[in-house]
């Protein structure tokens, strides 16, 4: 017999499967390639913001260097392809390795600070990275950047140098990201990380290695940022430092805030808003940035915990409605018997 809770779980699973199926068939539904492009960019940003979510949402440290990790991933993979003719898979793996190394090197000193000081240290790192990318022109191509050849690999027979093929690749990474973050937050380690966010002293007193947990969270955020960067590089086939400047660090923070940090779905919503909203406002021409800013301010003021909060409430309310009705019907049926 299916109990109320099990039925609810089944229902949620069915909804998730439906969403996944919709995403799988999306290239058939979205016939205009431009919108598929925006969806690919949103998914890449989802991976990026999920990384930020681990350090900011679950650990409670506001990091301003997620965009720097994005750049490091893009340049690592791009330079290896350009200079050593590495493939996409090797490039992404190298980006993961670089994320771990840089995350640890930056995490060690910066995580000894807290609050605003941590944000300032990570912002300084972003500015330093930008200066290196811009200034080391012999390696990075300087301010103009450099291009790489389109990837030659295929996925399930679909060439990855097509938009559709690349969409599926990014979708797989996005699904893996959400599964990883879900699994991590549900694990013992994840609970320890959340305990650090709630109260570091208390977490320490019950035996949690606070610094190790913080460093682990920072490394995860760096790795996810670098993966997103590598995916971006091979999607656009071009990279220049302008997209990794400190001003874009604000965009990553905004995506987190607008969507809602500390949740699985929040980064997805925030990423889609940050990518789609400026495109929808393109009609405003030169006033687009102004309009974008105003809309974001309104969202942040009206929904301080992100768009995900009212959506979660709506979802909970809908589930309660559906299953209360079912429970009443089941109870009536049972009493009639």
């Amino acid at each position, binding site marked *: 017999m299916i109990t109320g809770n099990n039925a609810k779980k089944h229902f949620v699973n069915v909804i998730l499967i439906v969403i996944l199926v919709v995403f799988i068939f999306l290239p058939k*539904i*979205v*016939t*205009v*390639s*431009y*919108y598929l*492009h*925006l969806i690919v*960019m949103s998914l890449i940003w989802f991976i990026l913001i999920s990384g930020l979510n681990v350090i900011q949402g679950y650990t409670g440290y506001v990091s301003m260097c997620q965009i720097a990790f994005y750049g490091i991933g893009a340049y690592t993979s791009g330079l290896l392809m*350009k200079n050593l*003719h590495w493939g996409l898979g090797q490039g992404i793996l190298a980006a993961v390795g670089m994320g771990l190394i840089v995350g640890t090197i930056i995490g060690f000193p910066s995580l000894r600070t807290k609050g605003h000081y941590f944000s300032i240290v990570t912002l300084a790192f972003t500015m330093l990275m930008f200066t290196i990318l*811009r*200034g080391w*022109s012999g390696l990075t*191509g*300087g*301010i*103009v*950047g*450099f*291009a790489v*050849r*389109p990837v030659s690999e295929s996925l399930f027979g679909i060439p990855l*140098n097509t938009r559709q093929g690349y969409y599926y690749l990014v979708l797989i990474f996005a699904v893996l990201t959400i599964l990883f973050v879900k699994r991590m937050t549900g694990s013992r380690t994840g609970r320890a990380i959340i305990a650090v966010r709630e109260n570091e002293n208390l977490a320490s007193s019950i035996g949690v290695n606070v610094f190790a947990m913080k460093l682990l969270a920072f490394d995860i955020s760096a790795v996810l940022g670098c993966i997103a960067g590598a995916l971006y590089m091979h999607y*656009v*086939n*071009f*990279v*220049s430092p*302008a*997209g990794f400047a400190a001003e874009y660090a604000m965009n990553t923070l905004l995506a987190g805030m607008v969507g809602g940090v500390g949740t699985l779905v929040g980064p997805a919503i925030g990423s889609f808003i940050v990518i*789609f909203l400026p*495109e*929808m406002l*393109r009609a405003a*021409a*030169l006033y*687009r*940035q102004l309009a974008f800013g105003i809309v974001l301010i309104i969202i942040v003021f009206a929904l301080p915990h992100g768009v995900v909060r*009212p959506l979660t409430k*709506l979802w909970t*309310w809908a589930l309660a409605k559906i299953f209360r009705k079912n429970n009443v019907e089941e109870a009536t049926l049972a009493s009639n018997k």
Partner: protein
Amino acid sequence: MKKGSMRIGKVLLSVLLIAVLTSMTAACGGSGSGSGSDGGADADGGAKTGTIVWGVDDSLTGTGAGSGLPSYQGTVLAVEQVNAEGGIQIGDTSYTIQLKEYDNKSDASEAVSTLTKLLDVDKVHFVIGWGSSTATLAAAQIAMTRQDDVTMVVGNGRTPMLMVYNTQGNIFRSGTGNVYDPIGIVQYMKEVGCNKTGVIAMMNDTAYSVSAKQYMEKFEECGIESVGLENFEANDTDFNTQVTKLLHAGADSILTVGNIIESATIVRTIREQGSDIPIVNFSAGTGSQWLGVCTNEQMNNCYTTRPWASAIGATDDGTQEAYTEAYIARWNDSPAQADCQAYDDVWIMKAAYEKAQSTDPLEVRAAMKELKVSDLDPRCVDAFEALDGDKLFDEFNQAYAPYQCMRWSMEEKTWTLAAVVGRNLGPAAHREYVLEQREKEGL
């Protein structure tokens, strides 16, 4: 009361969600204007007319706006002139040009989005503008993978790497790339009194660093001693350190290589340090852009050397005077290099359509490849060099115009032509560079 307001909030939220979802569905399912780049001809009192839609993708904001805005203005001016004269004539049909413009914010990601939108939503096949190098290079990667869908006609985006990546042949550039034998310019520098020259350049920019190095390589050949090379970056505002160092090293002249505003700020810094030495700038910009940073007095003894022909007296037939007057009348601003290039691109496109006698994008592209300098409207501002067979574009789809040296005129308060140099020196140097880079990149 609280329950009531919560209910209203829920209703409002639901309405908002439905509205957003509806608009997104409509946007995703729609096919944009669907008009294509070539509108169909219709009957209008016996005369057939039609519309051709071109995309304009330019840096209207961001670091490249100094080139992008004039470039956009040049495009609009030329299109207005073409349309006022009946548009493009193909057979018995007159086509009016319509522009679909987007700002790429001088940003690589943005340029990819705007070009994709122009191709997929607005269905254009020709995209002009491209005032800044970074955005142009990023968009070129998209253009290369969609060679049947798009032809990019680039004006002022002069990065030498652009033509290296143009392996599919669907990118054309009227603005001479920043790879050019600079011997004529360096000889001119010697003429204006440069003997011991200090260089201040944007060395982290591919285009500017290539140019700066090329200049310095020719110094010795022309009897100029180099007293040092100082670096600066985009958006820098304080150049006291670089200027002091070079003046202290005994520089009797300075060469600046970089963006307009930064170069103008260097000029101001040199003058503020009490020096009136000749300053040669490898930079474009309108007279008013320079006067936005320096005073007219500070601009005295300043020179600029770029492939730019919109100077009064640049040619004998009055083309430049007519252009300058038209530009000032339309925009209330003096013209610069970037707007000339964009202006010429429109006339080049018109000539290609009329040569092809077709609106088919691939036929027009093929005709553009075969264009001769003599096919161009005489209003083209740049004095393009006729290549083998009088052709406008070389094997890489690159056109060439000689460099011109401008002197600041205290009376006119803008640049005026001082000398034309470098004729016939460009194609060989450019060809060598492109082939070398292609080999290096494995293209």
